[in-house]
């Protein structure tokens, strides 16, 4: 009985592939939305009207000091009370994006703070329009400065998707749990998905490093 049996596990390789795709989609969408929140929030906090500063700060602190799992339950179970019903997968994407957004704001803000004020003054005196200043003098150099921290957070986001099965979203871990219930081969299944996550995470690290090099000539 104590033998490893991977046969029943690989018989379900289609399910694993579906799971990987769902995990990647969840991660990609929430990374996109989360980074957008991060950019807007960081610019809003550093350069926006003062009135924005407190709510953005509160958002960042609340999200960074409460567990993702509670945030998931909150989005899925309490938003319907105000009439917003999201499917499990969308609720997961919303919660994950809000989660990443808070971290992204802090990370990008650190990048913005690292830009010397003189650089912005110089751009102004050259007559650059505000949009161009924000884009070329603030956002791009700030992202460049914090790119490694930001992508590290993206990696965490990929791993964070593993808990969204708690609100019935379908991804790699949830699909693995379904299979455990059917086959009782828990050890083999969890080993396989641990390896899959490991490969995803390592590939994503390489991919992010490659993108970084292309965009910012950033050395890994």
């Amino acid at each position: 009985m104590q033998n490893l049996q991977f046969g029943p596990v690989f018989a379900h390789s289609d399910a694993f592939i579906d799971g990987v795709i769902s995990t990647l989609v969840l991660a990609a969408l929430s990374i996109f939305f989360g980074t957008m929140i991060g950019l807007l929030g960081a610019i809003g906090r550093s350069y926006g009207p003062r009135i924005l500063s407190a709510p953005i700060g509160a958002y960042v602190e609340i999200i960074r000091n409460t567990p993702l799992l509670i945030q998931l339950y909150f989005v899925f179970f309490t938003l319907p009370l105000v009439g917003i019903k999201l499917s499990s997968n969308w609720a997961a994407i919303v919660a994950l994006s809000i989660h990443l957004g808070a971290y992204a704001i802090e990370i990008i803000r650190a990048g913005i703070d690292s830009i010397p004020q003189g650089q912005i003054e110089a751009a102004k005196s050259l007559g650059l329009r505000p949009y161009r200043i924000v884009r070329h003098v603030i956002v791009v150099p700030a992202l460049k400065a914090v790119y490694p921290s930001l992508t590290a957070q993206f990696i965490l986001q990929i791993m964070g998707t593993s808990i969204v099965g708690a609100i019935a979203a379908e991804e790699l871990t949830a699909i693995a749990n379904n299979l455990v219930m059917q086959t009782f081969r828990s050890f083999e299944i969890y080993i396989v998905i641990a390896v899959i996550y490991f490969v995803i995470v390592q590939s994503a690290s390489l991919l992010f490093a490659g993108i970084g090099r292309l965009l910012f000539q950033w050395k890994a």
Partner: protein
Amino acid sequence: MSLRDFGPNEFMFLIAAARWTILLALVTFAGGGAIGIFIAALRIAPSRPLRWLAIAYIQFFMGTPILIQLFMAYYGSSLLGFRPDPWTAAAVTFCINAGAFFGEIFRGAIEAVPRGQWESAKSLGLGFLKTLRLVILPQALQLMVPPTVGLMVQIVKTTSVASLIGLNELTRAAIKVNTVTFEPFMVFGTVAIIYFALCWPLSLYATRLEKRGNGKIQAKVKLPRLMPAS
């Protein structure tokens, strides 16, 4: 007998359940810290195979979700003859997982101590472990503190994941209360506030420590960017 409102009893029940969250976080801090010291020592050991071993450990535990590690420990380990209860499975998994993160923090701090000190210790005839203990660690300790406090915040939050293997901590208590009240806003709102009350002071403290350290040797410390997902 069935449904009722979320009242003071339910509130107190959740507050009381936080003690298990705190206990698991403390166990993780102590156990993970001890493992972290060991991993950091291996990571900078003079022998290459030892360093590889430490790298593999760190890569595996930082590069796979803690939920999967928990499932492996709790459901999967019976195949290896271990049959842990949820507490043991959670405590062991969190310690081993946090060990990788602590290891990286400690290594970052140790490597921030100038190389020259290793050489001078060597010329004084001190061995690797003695140099580490008597010369390097005392200086590195100050550098470790801010990221360690930051990691504690992550640990407290991550313990919520243990509810998914049935550990009776704060999040699992919330699920139980919600089963009889169906007031998710009150239940999860209260629980969010409790987590916030545990984490925010730590976060503020970590930020203060970082700021205080800025400009000193601290600035040079390359600490791990990865913190556990929670």
